[in-house]
């Protein structure tokens, strides 16, 4: 009885593992095969590295190396926005955790509400606002909204509120350090783990964001990779038979599209693998005992 229960449990877990992992496996193997071979050979078979190189040549040639440009844009948007997030969120979390000023609770509650609200709910309002400010089509219309990352503020707040010994800060003040010096010399060096966590979440959120850049950017040379992928999708005849002739000309078929998708997730996947533990801690941020 016990043995069957254990077996059943393992069976259920394994079935779900297959569901979660197989699509990733397929995606990794697809660029190793030619488009025709994807249909005829076994879905999870390996083709050849030569095909991967060929697929990359086709992808790279698409629209005058625009794929590299998209990756570059994504790196630019994600890194610059995350830099601003770190510069604003860490001090803000510190100020909210250890400060005492009128409106502190209001700022904290607003930050929490906006953080929990789905980001997509704010995209059209932000678009309408940027449109009124004539910022549509500018790189800033992506970087500036990305730089507002309330989750980062909350993580920093939580960290300082729960782990920062007030005595240490008071000691620094007794030694004559001003508020700024206390932050820079004592609080900031202690915040290394939280800086890494905020960096990670902000970078991943920016890298994966589709809706905002899709709404506010007009020129395909400004697209980040997520929007670029949708552009590639509409050029793939396998999904868009109307592109039949066009697909032949631009050489974008399923293997190329799969390779483009795979390369687009590599930066995030690497950070995912490296920081799984930190991530879990971050996701449980709200669970910290009061």
């Amino acid at each position: 009885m016990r043995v069957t229960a254990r077996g059943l449990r393992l069976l259920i877990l394994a079935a779900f593992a297959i569901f979660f992992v197989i699509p990733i496996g397929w995606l990794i193997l697809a660029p190793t095969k030619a488009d025709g071979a994807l249909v005829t050979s076994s879905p999870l078979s390996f083709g050849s590295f030569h095909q991967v190189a060929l697929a990359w040549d086709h992808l790279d040639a698409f629209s005058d190396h625009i794929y590299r440009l998209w990756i570059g844009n994504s790196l630019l948007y994600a890194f610059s926005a995350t830099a601003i997030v770190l510069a604003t969120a860490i001090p803000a979390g510190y100020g909210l955790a250890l400060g005492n000023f009128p409106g502190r609770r209001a700022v904290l509650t607003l930050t929490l509400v906006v953080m929990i609200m789905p980001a997509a709910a704010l995209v059209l309002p932000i678009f309408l606002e940027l449109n009124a400010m004539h910022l549509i089509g500018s790189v800033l219309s992506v970087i500036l909204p990305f730089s507002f990352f309330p989750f980062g503020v909350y993580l920093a707040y939580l960290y300082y509120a729960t782990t920062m010994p007030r005595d240490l800060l008071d000691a620094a003040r007794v030694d004559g350090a001003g508020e700024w010096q206390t932050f820079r010399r004592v609080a900031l060096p202690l915040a290394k783990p939280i800086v890494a966590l905020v960096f990670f979440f902000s970078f991943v959120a920016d890298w994966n964001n589709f809706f905002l850049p899709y709404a506010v950017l007009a020129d395909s040379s400004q697209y980040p990779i997520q929007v670029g992928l949708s552009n590639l999708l509409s050029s793939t005849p396998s999904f868009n038979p109307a592109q039949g002739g066009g697909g032949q000309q631009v050489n974008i078929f399923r293997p190329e599209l799969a390779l483009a998708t795979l390369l687009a997730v590599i930066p995030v996947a690497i950070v995912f693998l490296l920081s799984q533990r930190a991530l879990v801690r971050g996701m449980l941020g709200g669970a910290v005992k009061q």
Partner: protein
Amino acid sequence: MSSPALTSAQAEAAQPRGLRAARPRGPRVPRGLPFIVPYLPFLIAFGIAPMLYALDLAVTNANGGVTGFHNFVRTFRDYRFVPAFEHILLYTSVWLGTLIVFVVGLALLLHGRANRVSATFRFLFYMPGALAGAASVLVWLFMLDPAVSPGSFLLRHVLGAQLFVQSIAPGHLPFVFAMIAFWTGAGGWIVVMYGALNTIPDELEEAARIDGAGPFTIALRLKLPLIRKWIAYMIILSFATGTQLFIEPQLVNEASLGLVPDTWSSNQLAYQLAFRYGDFNAAAAIAVDLLVIGLLAAVLIVTRTGLFRREG
């Protein structure tokens, strides 16, 4: 930054030593305020102002005249409005149902296991989380194409689809989108639930076991009620997120030659009203509808579940 330091030095000079740690009063800048100053413009410009501006647009017309609820009524009467909300509600309920049953179920199954086995499974479940945004949709477009999918057997026999366009037949879409969302997001939630289960004291489980409760009873009667607020959190948050659906139907629209309308979800409809028709007031009205759902959910979570601390 020099002025607070100066005044604090003055305060120090004026006060006896023992009182220095107490909060200084007087013309001093309140402690902590300067640190949130760089963040405030962003909170206002991209958190609060867009909401207020959308609300303002929603209750006015193109010339700025106040029209009250006119835009809300007008968009509600749009022939695409009700179907779009029906689509996202059906999608959201399917997604929520699978999340509740499988996330909680799998977390409970994992919690009883040896640590290393459990960690491996959690990692495998979590992996698709790296493929968010357009990438996850593209992967599933492949998975739904019977010509190349490793699950073509299932597509042919369960969905009855021989061709890609049959896989994404309108009736299938809420389920297809729910599956994509489950695939990318469930692993993260399983990790959260597992973490919540770990906060249950061992003694409690031990006591139940001594009382003769089996693993099944312990899971349902003891563990489940103790992670209730996390389940509530997942449900409210996922409900709010689900209603905002945009990228999945947008990409499927692009991959289906318009077989799937580009106004399938409410957010898409708002987007099309703004971009294709330049009707920003109508777009704002729908954006406000969706904003209200998101806001309500967020306020509910912050004030009711007690999961987020607001006091230092």
